[in-house]
Each structure stands twice: as C-alpha cells, then as structure tokens.
C-alpha cells in the first residue's frame, strides 16, 4: 500500500543548530512533495513545494531536498529558533493526479535555548 512516513519521535535540538526532518514514501512516484507547519490547536500552514525535477528548494532559513532514488525528502531549518518549534508535515498526491493529497504523520520539532 502507499505510505508516507515521517519520524513519529519528536526531534529536540538546540537553538542555532540545523534541524533535519525526513519524509519517506513507499509505493508512490510523486511528481512533487509539499511541506506544512502545524502549531498546536491550529490548521497546517503551507511552507514549500518541491517538484521531482528540483533537487533542492530554498526559502529563507528553510531548505527542502527531493531524492527520487531514495524515495525521500529532507526538510532543513538552519539557525533554528524556539519559534520554529511545531509539527512539520509532508504531503503528496498519487502520480498523475492532483487529488487525494495525502499527509504523513508529522514530526514534532522542539527547539530549546
């Protein structure tokens, strides 16, 4: 079956370090991946989209990579701050369709002083 997997364990890092979150997918051949941020009690907020022909995408302190060989996307936050503490979700659609955007379980990031 098709799966999008993220590390369910929380990631704890110190302020100023780079946080790296992983999104693995199986039985998918996605044309793109989306990344969202979700704060407690709020709806997810879109951050970045990376297409399969883009190896890397950047937005301010955020960087996303997409490795179709490893079937993996990595999400990096450089110079992390306590305000970056949240749950980060990756999502994609089955190939060839724009419907059924499916989310991973999300990884909670905690940035401490």
């Amino acid at each position: 079956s098709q799966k999008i997997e993220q590390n369910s364990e929380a990631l704890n890092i110190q302020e100023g370090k780079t946080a790296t979150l992983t999104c693995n997918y199986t039985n998918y051949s996605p044309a793109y991946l989306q990344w969202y941020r979700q704060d407690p009690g709020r709806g997810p907020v879109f951050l970045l989209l990376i297409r399969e022909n883009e190896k890397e995408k950047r937005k301010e302190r955020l960087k996303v990579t997409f490795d179709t060989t490893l079937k993996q996307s990595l999400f990096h936050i450089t110079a992390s701050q306590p305000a970056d503490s949240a749950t980060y979700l990756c999502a994609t659609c089955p190939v060839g369709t724009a419907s059924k955007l499916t989310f991973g379980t999300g990884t909670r990031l905690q940035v401490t002083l």
Partner: protein
Amino acid sequence: EAGVAQSPRYKIIEKRQSVAFWCNPISGHATLYWYQQILGQGPKLLIQFQNNGVVDDSQLPKDRFSAERLKGVDSTLKIQPAKLEDSAVYLCASSLPPEGSLAGELFFGEGSRLTVL
C-alpha cells in the same frame, strides 16, 4: 484576505448523536477538502470537492458521514450517528484549481474539535 472559516471550533456530543460542521473557503478557491485529524496523527482526507462536484470520497465512512457543497462555495460535513472513534479535529481546506496533476497549496481553517463521549 479572509482565510478559511470553520464553525463550531469545539463540539462535545454523546455517542449516537449527530453533529454538523460548516466551512466557508477562501473566495475564488474552487477546490475544497475535509480532513480528519486524530490526535498524534497526520490529517486524513475524507472528501475533496471541485466546485460542487465530488472529486474523491474514497475514505469517507458513508454509512455515517455525509458532506455537501451546495452552489460550489460553503460546505457542511455531517456525522450521524457519531461513534467514540470519531473524536478528532475536522479540518477544512481550500485551494485554487490544480494545474494539471499539480495540486495547489492548501489553505486550512483552524479546525473543529469534536469530542464524542
């Protein structure tokens, strides 16, 4: 620009009762989604509308859940009768129409938290 509006924010009901959630998407967004998010899990798609037509409802428990999007704008999601396992946050999202197979950025509402006792 106004965001996606949802109501109510919180609802507590007894099992076997019914409940309805309302969503008003961002103006001009043809695509509307309802997701269910159980605590500690990612959002799970229940139903996707394109204007007032259903694009996908393969994960909607149709024996108890129903959704409609009359006139291609507002949408309601109903649960009748509710079960304990329906306790979750129900998220509504909207987006511009997809560009081919590229789904657009989703804009989510704050969600409606349902507790079934």
